[in-house]
């Protein structure tokens, strides 16, 4: 029954990866900003939720505060850091280094405020229930998968049905044409950062309730987001969904063959091979020149 257990754990990991990565994928796909500090938005949201829980404000207030913190951080990054760099045509790496720097600062600020050790919120949701003999599932697994369905569905509807959503997709295709249509690319970019940062909240809350938080979580979150985005194909929301599950399942099912310490290497081996063999990703358009 090992493989079934690993499949279920893999589905939970995958759901979490998909939820984590979709925000970065949206931001990167539309604005082409390599928003490495996305992991910092995740950590901020998770710790604000944790703080609200410790302060006894309840889950709903915690989620709202976490959402506000993540969105404020994302929009501030766009305005204060990325906009000035792009104004003088900063190269991709200039943006990356600036973003990485902010990520380091946030990690250490969070560490100073909340301490550097692991914290977790105790909840019955993370207690495993025996589904059948030898196979354990925590209710959080179902919540994660449910969140994936809701958030990906809502995001697809938003991108197709609303004015802002269509504008976001247009920004990905051609920033020049956006201006021709009388829209302001900066405002659409801000919308991409607000929405993309908002999307860290479900993943951050589930992580806070489940495996727990530490301030250094951000860079892991970021690496997974990047891997899922590229494996899925830059700019493809369905791609990131599939890639999230592929990576989650691969990481867990690989434990049948190798020791669990190697499971993270599996993710990055997949990333490396996909870039070598099919750079456009599973669902991407041909973009790698």
């Amino acid at each position: 029954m090992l493989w079934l257990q690993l499949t279920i754990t893999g589905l939970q990991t995958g759901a979490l990866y998909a939820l984590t990565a979709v925000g970065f994928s949206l931001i990167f796909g539309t604005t082409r900003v390599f928003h490495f500090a996305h992991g910092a938005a995740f950590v901020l949201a998770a710790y604000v939720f944790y703080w609200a829980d410790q302060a006894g404000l309840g889950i709903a207030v915690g989620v709202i505060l976490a959402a506000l913190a993540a969105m404020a951080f994302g929009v501030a990054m766009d305005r204060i850091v990325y906009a000035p760099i792009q104004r003088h045509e900063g190269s991709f790496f200039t943006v990356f280094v600036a973003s990485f720097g902010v990520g380091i600062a946030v990690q250490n600020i969070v560490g100073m405020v909340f301490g550097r050790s692991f914290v977790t919120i105790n909840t019955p949701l993370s207690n495993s229930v025996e589904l059948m003999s030898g196979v354990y599932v925590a209710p959080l697994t179902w919540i994660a998968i449910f969140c994936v369905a809701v958030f990906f569905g809502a995001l697809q509807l938003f991108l197709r049905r609303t004015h802002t959503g269509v504008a976001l997709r247009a920004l990905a295709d051609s920033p020049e044409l956006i201006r021709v249509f009388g829209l302001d690319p900066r405002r659409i970019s801000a919308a991409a950062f607000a929405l993309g940062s908002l999307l860290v909240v479900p993943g951050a809350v589930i992580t806070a309730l489940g495996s727990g938080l530490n301030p250094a979580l951000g860079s892991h979150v970021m690496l997974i987001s990047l891997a899922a985005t590229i494996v899925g194909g830059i700019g493809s929301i369905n791609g990131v969904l599939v890639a999230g599950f592929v990576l989650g399942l691969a990481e867990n099912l690989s434990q049948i063959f190798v020791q669990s310490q190697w499971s993270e290497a599996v993710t990055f081996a997949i990333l490396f091979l996909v870039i070598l063999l099919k750079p456009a990703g599973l669902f991407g358009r041909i973009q790698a020149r």
Partner: protein
Amino acid sequence: MEAYLLNLGVLIAIYAILAITLNFIMGYAGIFSLAHAVFFGIGAYVAAVVSMHVSASIFVTMPAAMLAAAVLSLALALPALRVRGEYFVAASLGLQMFAVTVFSEWKSFTGGLGGLVGIPAVKIFGQEVYRPASFFPIALAVLAAVVAITQILVRSSFGRSLTAIRDSESAAEGFGKNVPLIKTISVVISAALAATAGVLYAGYMSFINVESFTLDNSVLIMAMVIIGGTGTSWGPVVGAALLLLLPGLLSYLSFLPQADIGAIQQIIYGLGMAALMIFRPGGLVRRGSPQRKARPKAAPTRAKRGAVQ
């Protein structure tokens, strides 16, 4: 105090080698690698294992480490030939993360998370070099050799081919340059020279583990290059010295709470990096030749928003 300065000097020399070799592919060939610490690590591990089991002579460890790094760097050259921009960065990142797992899990070779302890001192002509007073000149000599090699290469026709590829790959190809070969050679040279820093590091510290060869370190090296000035001769050295001196200087600020000094250093380092990219993205050292100055900042077009596709 003198020991402290000498120690700092050795570390600056080691990191200057890393920054110079990264600048060689980043600034001149336009290959933005986030896996440079991997070759630092390969050099250090190979030198450590060779000196523990075969010979501690620098004339044995150095070639062995350089050879190993050169061969393994083909793993980085491969994606460099296939993809560019974000895709190559992601590939190098994948390689970096994979290598960290190998460094920390391949216990029989790397000693696992605990690392390798008791690496013998570097020997030159049978003479053991005790650290750090006598080690500093050796580190400087290796640094000088690396500077000389990269400067000669950059100023030769090979270097001009590299900059041609950086500025326009198709134009270079149109002029009959063998682009894949030139790119591969540049990656191999950069990795082999980076391994010399690893040899020095292993011999100097006499203890190594995966902590020194992680993604954070790759980014630190990259930050040294960018902060100093990408594509300049002395920028990487300035960047390396600055980033290594910063923590020491900050600990003199006595009004900072001592318990949080490490975190505060990191916050200043992070925010400083961001601020520098906003206000002085070209780095501290400007590019030398006049026609360079007239051009816009380093290769902006590739990563311009929406310009890929």
